[in-house]
């Protein structure tokens, strides 16, 4: 029962109700900013004649979850990628690694934490839509099961192929995301990265990390073997030197 959001730039009127609702729901200080920050988790940007929302994409296999050394970021079965500020030590590897540049930091605070959209996880768990989806007056952001939203997005593209770019953003990007977008303008012109591989980036490091136990075993045996051979050589050399008449060739291997 993985939930998600479908954002349609052709419907968005840029009223900013989603951003305001988000501020209120998550008790974020300050006014809505033009870019997402630790205090503005979603915002609407005018680009190429349309309005595009910025928010966490809530990856199916999130890079941030894989890189966090203390497991402060987690993917919930309901879909949201959530953040536990109590565990976070502030290494900011999530910010570095996120293919969508989503997590932001409280640079102005002496005790800072990461800020990012958490898809109103408490509301979603109660079966309610996210605050942004509920606030949207024109259904430019709709909340629902990810599978239903994919079907809905494809239906829109099929019914009005001349209106939409024939791509559902988030279907495969970085392994797929819970937030999906359809648009009349190519996504790279909206500031959404189009060079993302369909394999989750997390797999690249797991291929290395999962080999560590085997590697440690083989490397330890090899290193001890080297030590054994060189130490043995020394013993043999001593015997050859002192014990005249004994042939050390056999022990040399």
């Amino acid at each position, binding site marked *: 029962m993985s939930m998600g959001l479908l954002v349609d730039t052709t419907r968005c009127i840029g009223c900013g109700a989603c951003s305001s609702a988000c501020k209120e729901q998550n008790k974020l200080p300050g006014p809505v900013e033009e*870019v997402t*920050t*630790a205090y503005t988790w979603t915002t609407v940007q005018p680009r190429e004649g349309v309005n595009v929302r910025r928010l966490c994409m809530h990856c199916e296999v999130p*890079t941030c*979850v*894989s*890189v*966090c*050394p*203390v*497991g*402060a970021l987690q993917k919930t079965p309901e879909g949201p990628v959530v953040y536990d500020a109590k*565990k*976070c*030590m*502030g*290494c*900011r*590897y999530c*910010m*570095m*690694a996120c*293919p969508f*540049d989503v997590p*932001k*930091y*409280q*640079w*102005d*605070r*002496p*005790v*800072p*934490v990461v800020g990012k959209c958490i898809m109103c996880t408490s509301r979603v768990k109660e079966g309610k839509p996210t605050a942004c989806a509920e606030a949207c007056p024109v259904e430019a952001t709709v909340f629902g099961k990810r599978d239903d939203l994919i079907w809905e997005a494809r239906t829109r593209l099929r019914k009005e192929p001349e209106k939409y770019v024939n791509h559902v953003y988030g279907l495969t990007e970085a392994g797929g995301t819970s937030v999906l977008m359809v648009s009349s303008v190519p996504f790279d012109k909206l500031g959404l*990265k189009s*060079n*993302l*591989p369909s394999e989750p*980036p*997390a797999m*690249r*490091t*797991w291929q*290395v*990390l999962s080999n*560590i136990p085997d*590697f*440690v075993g083989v*490397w*330890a045996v090899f*290193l*001890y073997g*080297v*030590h054994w051979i*060189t*130490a043995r*050589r*020394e013993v043999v050399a001593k015997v050859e030197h002192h014990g005249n008449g004994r042939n050390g060739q056999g022990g040399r291997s």
Partner: protein
Amino acid sequence: MNTPLVRTQRRFRPGFWTAVFAVLVVAFCVVTFLRFSRGLGAVTHLSDSFPWGLWIGFDLLCGVGLAAGAFTLTAIVHLFNLKRFEPIVRPTILTGFLGYAFVILALLFDLGQPWRIWHAIIYWNPHSVMFEVAWCVMLYTTVLAVEFSPVVFERFGWHAPARFIHGLITPLVILGVILSTLHQSSLGSLYLIVPSKLHPLWYSPMLPLHFFISAIGAGIGMVILESYLSRRAFHRHLEMDLLEPLARGMVVALGIYGLLRLESIHRNGSFASILAFGYEGRMFLLEFTIGVILPVVLMSFRRLRTHPDWLVGSAFLAVLGFVANRLNVSITGMERAAGVRYIPSGMEIIVSVALVAMGMAVFAFAVRFFDIFPEGAVQSASRPPERIPGSLPESV
């Protein structure tokens, strides 16, 4: 025992460098106060677009990398049984330990909430490279401290614990080599996760191997530099019979590394971006020329390898090139994707430089107090501060 001329020179220099050191420490204290009272934004040029800067690129990546001489040399002496290198093991282990202490101190500045640095011990995420690095750094710093502890025990005449540690040296060294292999390469693995952000001149699935082999090369370079510095303290000639074969090892490591780098660039189809001579291309050429081509070519000639000046100069180039590489991976190569230029703030630089200087001061103190060199503790007459001059800031 010294000529009067040399003595006059010495009376002047420690004063100057002590003053520089004092100013640095004061500036460091001010920045420390600002960092912890006002937050990272007040002292660094880090931002949401560029979350990792100098403290990761130089302090963490270079601090760990240049301490690689410790595991390389302990492996040579204790596993490969080349006992003749034993005289330079102790200073190398000390430098390694100080290098790791430097890294941990720098992390206390860089982490948003450093008082939670121990969280990696209780909250596990084995899928995270950072988690692996945290554990390896923690364990290897402990290993280095234990490897060095006999020196401390001997100083106070505690022979029983010193003998005990000596008896454990083989498993300790093996553990140290394994941990080092893991996290030296893992610092490269940190960047495996950003294929869409790191410039193709540096990104490669082979990054872990690149980091590991280049650390061995530059780590050996550091050992040569250290020997040079300690020889200066004793006014003796360089032990060329030890350093010349080390330089050969450096050529092999850097040579293999250079070929691997070229192969990766070829596979990424990025030779064009070198020829285009843009920002990334120029930075790559700088790094590759001073860090790989020059040291490998120069040290391939026996005549130059056996000449102290050329040997030390080449080792210095290898270390400089290594630093340039790590800064390129962590900063230059990430700037295009971030869409911003990152230049560290003066306060970021002060912290990095002050930590290096403190590491050198501790080293200078340790060589006088403990038997680090085969000649025993450095006498106060031959002043170690002479070796502090900023010409070699990387030697922590």
